[in-house]
């Protein structure tokens, strides 16, 4: 990740009646680029709504580690 970049978590839903699903994350230095990158990277569906938030805005409720931490076996693949 370049200096100044943050991770942005991306959520989207196909229809207004749907709940949001977590679709992935992007690296970007500011909200403008976070939003653009999210929209253009995760374009697999015709989303009704997509939202982004910085990963560090999330707080884990039931576990000690940081949110979005993968199992070590999966982390090794990223």
């Amino acid at each position: 990740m370049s200096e100044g970049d943050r991770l942005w978590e991306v959520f989207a839903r196909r229809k207004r009646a749907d709940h949001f699903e977590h679709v992935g994350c992007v690296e970007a230095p500011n909200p403008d680029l976070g939003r653009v990158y999210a929209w253009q990277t995760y374009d697999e569906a015709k989303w009704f709504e997509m939202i982004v938030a910085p990963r560090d805005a999330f707080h884990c409720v039931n576990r000690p580690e940081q949110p979005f931490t993968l199992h070590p076996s999966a982390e090794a693949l990223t």
Partner: protein
Amino acid sequence: MTEEVKYTKAADLPEELREHLGALILVLADNKRLLGMRYSDWILGAPALEAGIACSAMAQDEWGHGRIFYAMLRDFGQDPNRLEHERESSEYRSIELLDGPAEDWTELLALNLLLDSALSVQFEAMADSRFEPVHYKVSKLLDEERFHFEHGRGWVARLGSTEAGREAMQKAFAPAWEACVRWFGPDDDGVARRLRDAGITDKDAAGLRARWLERVAPVVESVGLGLAEASNGTWRSSVEPAWDGWDSDVRRGREGGPDAETLVRVRGDKNRPLLMD
């Protein structure tokens, strides 16, 4: 002029208006096609993976827009296949900035923020056009372009946070700025006024340039590039373009056109034997 008049096809337009609008549509289609190619040049090699994906998406958007407007010219008695594949360089109506490749990321960023926004401002002026075939296409196009603008704004903010980034942008943005200021034509441009008076667009050249300045000047001046000044809430370009040789229908300030390599690629010369229609 009456509010009721709508034009559903080119043949409904008075002859002079038809010529001016046909010329404007070709200007826009050529700029879209060439700009798409410039975005595509950076799909591999952009400073971040996400920026490369963004260039890919923006290239697809521009090519889609270009194809729609080349196709529209059939109604104006032109052959879209010839327009797309068989013209000489001197017949292209794309801005000089697109004649050759963007040499670095800041030059591409100048095209992204300044030129792409100039094209969007020109399309926005036709959102309620009395020429309905254009009016119906503009809304979706502008939805896509909103992300192009935000991409440009986001990158200006990022590069503007360092002195080296700001200096690189100053160098790349100065020529692009002058070319885009000029691209709308002189304030009293007769073609732009006739299109506005007929309800094809909603602004003359001065009005279009003012709308563009309102959009891009706050972005470039948020990082102090020294290209525009605000006075009583109105943005003014710090640079006055030269009008020598300006042609309002071609929207270029000088002779010339895309360079040889650009022409081969934009026409699809290498695939010529495969063209099916």
